[in-house]
């Protein structure tokens, strides 16, 4: 049972987002027939629980600062983009740029995420049960990316202070990345993430940790100097 139900078949996107914004903290909501609709549940700061019952479109949960969102399906590009706080859990797959630029909160994708997952991450946490596409973690500045499955090419290219954990195979690392041994703190963090996400197919013993090699941090005036 939920407190409120909205349907994308009978309400416009704006009507739904305006109605969501007016709900008091603690309200539970179900949104039915999303039909791939973009921009659902964006820009909310109230602490409500929203269930989207089906496949949704781009920017689901974007800019939010509080709500817990569950999508019973797959989502399009940029789920949880610029998330500040709260969670977005996707039961299916996510398209490109999942959790892009997120400052806080957590995006959980139970299936696969496509290219550029966690691009420019700024402090949030992205957890993907399956695989991630190429160029994931590109220029990620802070926060954590936890991939249960494989990562395609150029993982973590031009990484700053974000940390990437991969349970499966890494096709190739991007520029200025390096693999580090897991510390006890890493193992504790991974244990917590596995408990929160339910990704118990991942064993911390097999996880690869990727961080910045920091060779691009400072301009090298002598590099490629010919004279």
């Amino acid at each position: 049972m939920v407190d409120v139900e909205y349907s994308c078949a009978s309400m416009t996107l704006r009507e739904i987002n305006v109605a969501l914004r007016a709900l008091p903290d603690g309200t539970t909501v179900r949104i039915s027939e999303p039909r791939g609709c973009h921009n659902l549940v964006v820009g909310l700061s109230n602490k409500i629980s929203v269930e989207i019952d089906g496949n949704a479109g781009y920017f689901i949960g974007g800019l939010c600062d509080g709500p817990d969102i569950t999508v019973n399906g797959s989502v399009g590009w940029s789920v949880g983009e610029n998330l500040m706080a709260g969670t977005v859990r996707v039961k299916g797959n996510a398209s490109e740029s999942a959790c892009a630029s997120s400052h806080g909160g957590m995006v959980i994708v139970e299936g696969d995420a496509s290219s550029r997952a966690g691009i420019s991450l700024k402090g949030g946490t992205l957890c993907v049960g399956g695989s991630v596409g190429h160029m994931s973690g590109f220029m990620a500045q802070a926060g954590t990316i936890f991939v249960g499955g494989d990562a395609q090419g150029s993982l973590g290219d031009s990484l700053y202070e974000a940390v990437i954990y991969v349970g499966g195979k890494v096709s190739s690392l991007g520029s200025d990345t390096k693999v580090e041994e897991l510390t006890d703190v890493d193992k504790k963090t991974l244990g917590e993430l596995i408990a929160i996400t339910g990704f118990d197919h991942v064993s911390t013993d097999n996880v690869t940790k990727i961080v910045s090699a920091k060779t691009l941090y400072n301009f090298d005036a002598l590099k490629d100097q010919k004279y």
Partner: protein
Amino acid sequence: MCGIVGLKLKNPALENQLGALTVPILDCLASRGEDSTGIAIYTHDIGKSAHKYSLYNPEMPFDWEQYVGSLDGVFGDGFTLTVQARQALVVSEADPVQILSALRHGDPTVRLFGYGNAIDVFKEVGPASVVCERYGIANRAGYMAIGHTRMATESAVTTEHSHPFAVNADVCLVHNGSFSNYASVRRDLVDHGIHFDTDNDSEVCARFIGRELAEGATMADALKTVLKTFDGFYSLVVASEDSMAVVRDSFACKPMVVAETDDYVAVASEYHALAELPGIEDARVFEPNPEEVLSW
């Protein structure tokens, strides 16, 4: 941005609904571009030895009877002429080489938008709802539809610059993105005697694929050569009489979603455009990987 669509039916029972299934997809993708809209419908509605010619003139009314008469009987005996809005569809058994030559040297205000045994091409400036209504797309039957909603970036907003670009018999291309090295490829094709109708970057890719196919390449091989030759951002849907293929560039910056059931393969820029298709809830939905060529 642009919207691209491909719908290839596996179940012949759906062929009467092809247009009705495609219009809502195009209408939804009008959010990605309303400069112009185009659609190629593939249907086996004429004898195997005949060809269809999709002709266009911006003037309406236009004296199509007089125009056809001016071509010195090149369409032969028993050709048919069907006019709808600014388009005329001619069906003829006569030699296509002579017809194509006569069309090129005839009234320059008449454009050839496509030809072949199966393809009908409809395209015009304006949003999907208007163009589809004008050409009665919802009522058209067929086994495959390739569509495009355009937001112009590289060249002018005119009907001639609209997609699909249908350059060889029954071959057409729709493109979301922009090619950065198309001028070089175009020069090379022109040097090899290939004629262009517009300065559009997507037409260059269409004619490049057309040349590869004419030289004996398979569609999959032609698209692999596109990956090696073209620089830029692109998601492409390309069709021939019996196949539909897709490819995305190495960055996969332009979106593409495939939904496959026992009844159809549908491709669109965004999933929500496909959300009204029958059985979509149980379809296998996925995105083509960067540089992956898929064909059906």
